[in-house]
């Protein structure tokens, strides 16, 4: 439900957060932590978020690397969703971005839909965009629980194809991205390339041939 989006600290206004560090509470914290307060208050420790990042130079340039897990917060996808919806709400819909957010964290795989005004929905499957009705018609006909990766990839390709052929706002090729619970990510650019123009051009008898 909504409870996962309410954090311990909610800003009083929706104005952008101020830049820089605020030292308002330093004196107060120091006096609370000191023995004169009776030792009832223990100051909270800064939390380290586990991550591995590396960088090296080589003959032809640099290589940077990072792992794909931020273990400080175990509910990563909810956090990503919360950050996105707060930003979009702040812009009152003027940032015209409608998103499908997907990822895996300690609680398993998740899919969220995020609308330009900041509303969200958590669903097992979702579609967005001008071709969303065409794609959803495929999902609603063929989605089932506990699909294998190949079944899911095939279903996604068929749903995108429905948008490519039946929605004028969509076309050309299909890209997919698989994010697994073991942490691996596979980007498949051009997994479907059914609309090449080259064969049509080749069928035309030009005067230079």
């Amino acid at each position, binding site marked *: 439900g909504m409870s996962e989006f309410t954090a311990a600290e909610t800003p009083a206004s929706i104005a952008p957060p101020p830049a820089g560090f605020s030292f308002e509470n330093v004196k107060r914290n120091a006096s609370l932590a000191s023995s004169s307060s009776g030792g009832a208050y223990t100051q909270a420790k800064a939390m380290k978020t586990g991550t591995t990042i590396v960088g090296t130079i080589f003959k032809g340039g640099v290589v940077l690397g990072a792992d794909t897990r931020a273990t400080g917060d175990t509910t990563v996808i909810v956090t990503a969703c919360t950050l996105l919806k707060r930003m979009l709400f702040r812009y009152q819909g003027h940032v015209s971005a409608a998103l499908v957010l997907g990822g895996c964290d300690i609680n398993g795989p998740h899919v969220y839909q995020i609308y330009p005004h900041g509303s969200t929905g958590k669903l097992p499957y979702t579609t967005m965009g*001008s071709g969303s009705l065409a794609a959803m018609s495929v999902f609603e006909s063929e989605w089932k629980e506990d699909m294998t990766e190949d079944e899911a990839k095939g279903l996604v390709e068929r749903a995108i194809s429905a948008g490519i052929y039946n929605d*004028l706002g969509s076309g050309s090729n299909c890209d997919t991205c698989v994010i697994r619970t073991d942490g691996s990510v596979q980007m498949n650019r051009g997994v479907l390339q059914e609309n090449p*123009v080259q064969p049509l051009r080749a069928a035309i*008898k030009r005067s230079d041939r």
Partner: protein
Amino acid sequence: MAVPASFDQQPGADSIDHGVTEAPYERRFSPYDFNGGTTLAISGPDFAVVAGDTRMSTGYEILSRDVSKLHPLTDHCVLASAGCKTDVDQLRSVLDIRSDMYRHNHQKDMKVTSVAQMLGNTLYGRRFFPYYSFNVLAGVDADGKGAVYSYDAIGSFERTHFSASGSGQSFVVPLLDNVIVHKNRCDEKRELGADEVVEIVKDAFVTAGERDIYTGDKLEIMVITKDGIQKSTFPLKAD
């Protein structure tokens, strides 16, 4: 979800109504819908080639992948129209009736030049509630030469070497200016035969289909000579 005719909005607003309004605006019923598509006609010394795609759409949806934009009015004259399909159908019906009446009264078919004038007059007859039809008339005139006439929605017309109208017009006209009329090129201009013009038409529609979402599915081509009309088709992309 889709309504047949669109609701007017303030100028500058997105023409697809997503149901979310940025500012209050007055909704008015618009009697016109745009059903998309591109038409093209090119004249030659003894032939005319006229072509149109077969996609009919409204908004972002496809209504049909196989609807013809070409309509033979006589054995030597074809009308190609893009715009609002219902207005195009009505216009064709009116022209057919008037053409039949002419044949009854004069015991002969209308010549292309006469059809051209009749179409212009018919369109102007609805000057204050126009047929939303962007027409191109193609045929072979009394001397056997190819004839192409371009029209606007209210009947202004002119005989031209070639003409293109519809949603993909902007992509096709500059290409034909270069290839047919020989603009902006320094090499020798040479005469093009009917077969070569047909290939150029196919290339033009493949090009328009790449950049115009309303053009695609299939291309219909008619070649008009003094011996009659020959029809052929060519596939276009369906995305």
